[in-house]
């Protein structure tokens, strides 16, 4: 075989975690996403830990979506141990999840993705020219972090969040104070959608099976069925029957497929494909105003989908806080043996946790599949087509396009090698 020309990206900047990308050019480009984040072995060392430590431990899988890992793990453990929680707990968890999704999307869009589209290496170079936008990011992010902190005690690695409920419920006046701030940033959120719809996203299209959680009557975040654009519609309990994970020899993260089918896409764009009609009406009107149409098979538009979710998320938090009052509750947990799994929508898409617990409440087995592990194979497939279609272009342009594509997925490689 002749020696193929190749592009090597040694350490992809502006993503969470560590990956290299190897691109072999030619008629049939060959792509390897070489995720070199060192093995972190969470599923290995969770064995032997107590059920009530798991939330705190798994939140340390990710510094950008700790709430998602905590929520999914605790939901799985509650399933395994047959623990019921109140409606109030479910609502507060949803608010926390959304607040983290919005904060995560903001960081991704402004700090990680945007510099590419204006030819900067990072946010520091952008600062003198994009003061208004960066201030918007900071202001909005602060409010969303304040909201996570209000309920969780801390935005990064919350502390009040336990199996069975929250250790402390904030007083009403604190919820009222945050409502004011949320109302203030709603207008900013519209500007976010404007900022992102102003980016010149590359022209590219590729078929994909979009997978998301779906539920009657709400934009599903922490509960629902697993639904895909190609007809999959299963309860969370059936996850293992339909999804398969396997090791590859060039990456520390595993890849996932839907059994007997193929790769798939999760995340904001996938969510909009599955449940656009469950967004708040105002969000749908805004989407129409900026000309966002579905289906949209351009993965670069995951950026715009995230922007719409920022707007929707803020509206949703406002509604949930306005229409509920929260009071102190007792956490009741009985330790018992069992096994159970849960799926939630993390900022980057479907997140799966599964645990087997013994009669003393000690973990016997753990399994975690993260959004980026779900997207792993799909990203490689997208890159292959993208490279093939752009082969006449300069190598530097191809390199940038590939980087932009990977970033559009907002991957978290640290999570993927949990």
């Amino acid at each position: 075989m002749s020696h193929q020309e190749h592009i090597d990206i040694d350490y992809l900047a502006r993503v969470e975690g560590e990956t290299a990308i190897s691109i072999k050019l030619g008629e049939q480009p060959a792509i390897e996403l070489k995720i070199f984040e060192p093995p972190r072995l969470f599923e290995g060392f969770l064995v032997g830990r107590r059920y009530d430590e798991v939330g705190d431990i798994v939140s340390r899988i990710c510094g950008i979506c700790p709430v998602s890992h905590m929520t999914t793990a605790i939901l799985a453990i509650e399933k395994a141990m047959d623990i019921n929680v109140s409606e109030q707990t479910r609502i507060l968890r949803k608010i926390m999840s959304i607040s983290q999704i919005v904060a995560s999307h903001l960081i991704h869009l402004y700090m990680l993705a945007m510099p590419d589209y204006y030819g900067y290496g990072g946010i520091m170079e952008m600062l003198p020219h994009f003061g208004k936008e960066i201030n918007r990011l900071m202001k909005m992010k602060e409010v969303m972090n304040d909201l996570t902190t209000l309920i969780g005690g801390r935005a990064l690695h919350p502390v009040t969040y336990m199996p069975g409920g929250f250790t402390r419920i904030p007083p009403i006046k604190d919820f009222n104070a945050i409502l004011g701030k949320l109302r203030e940033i709603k207008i900013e959120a519209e500007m976010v959608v404007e900022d992102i719809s102003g980016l010149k996203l590359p022209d590219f299209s590729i078929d994909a099976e979009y997978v998301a959680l779906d539920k009657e009557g709400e934009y599903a975040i922490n509960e629902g069925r697993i639904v895909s654009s190609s007809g999959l519609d299963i309860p969370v309990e059936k996850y293992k029957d339909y999804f398969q994970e396997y090791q590859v020899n060039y990456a520390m993260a595993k890849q996932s497929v839907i059994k007997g089918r193929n790769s798939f896409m999760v995340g904001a764009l996938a969510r909009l494909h599955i449940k656009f009609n469950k967004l708040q009406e105002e969000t749908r009107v805004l989407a129409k105003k900026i000309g966002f149409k579905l289906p949209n098979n351009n993965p670069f538009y995951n950026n715009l989908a995230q922007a719409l979710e920022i707007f929707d998320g803020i509206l949703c938090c406002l509604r949930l806080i306005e229409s509920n009052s929260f009071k102190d509750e007792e956490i009741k947990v009985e330790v018992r043996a069992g096994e159970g799994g849960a799926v939630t929508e993390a900022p980057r898409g479907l997140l799966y946790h599964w645990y087997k617990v013994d009669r003393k409440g000690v973990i016997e087995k753990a399994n975690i599949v993260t959004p980026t592990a779900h997207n792993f194979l799909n990203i490689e497939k997208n890159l292959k087509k993208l490279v093939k279609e752009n082969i006449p272009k300069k190598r530097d342009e191809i390199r940038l396009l590939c980087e932009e594509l990977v970033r559009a997925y907002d991957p978290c490689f640290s999570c993927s090698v949990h």
Partner: protein
Amino acid sequence: MEKPKIGIFKYSCCAGCEFQLIYFQKNILETLGAVDILYCKMLQSGGIEEEPLDVALIEGTITEAWQAAQLKKIREISKYLIPIGSCAVCGGIPAIKNISQELEVEKRVYQDTSLIHSLKAHPVDHYVKVDGYVKGCPMGERDLTELVISLLLNKRADLLEYCVCVECKLKNNICLLVAYHQPCMGPVTNAGCEALCPSNNRACYGCWGPMKDANAKALAEQFKKMGLSSEDIFRKFTEFGEPTEELKPGQLKS
């Protein structure tokens, strides 16, 4: 005055401490303006590992040989080197695996372990000399600011070297350990969180890592008197700080 050159390096961790830099957003725009960040892969493209630095901030624990080798090089080219966050300071969550056989842990995760080249998780000071610690999981803002400013002004940093209980008392919390018999790690855990968990009706779980000269043995005995099993006590003392000397007396299974 020339702006101080800063590099931020991530090893095995959640990257939360790098994010924490962004979370300290009230000061971030000023901070970014006052220093030159030469290396931070999450924040910007470019940057090489060999460029001389005034301050190297290291997050994460060391779990692969290349990380240790790179860390030693960074030490050589940096005037000051500071571990930030529990993983880098005391091993943190990644070091929980140290209590088991490495291969046993790997086998639970990977079918083919021949591709895995993991070491026991050790903090940064296991490999190189450090110029102070910014504790916390995620790291605390006060100590970070204090340490970086002190180094740059060539003064001695005033770091918190007492336990969570001190902060808890200052907040007038009722003691969860004494009054409610909750297994609180506050007495052996370094301060800096302003007694966050006890202030939220929850026993401290030690995420700031051990306090210097912690009396782990006495606390473990107290837990035993309260009826905790030796396994439960062992778990409490190994969640944040397995490789540290301070917590060893609490890690004895009787």
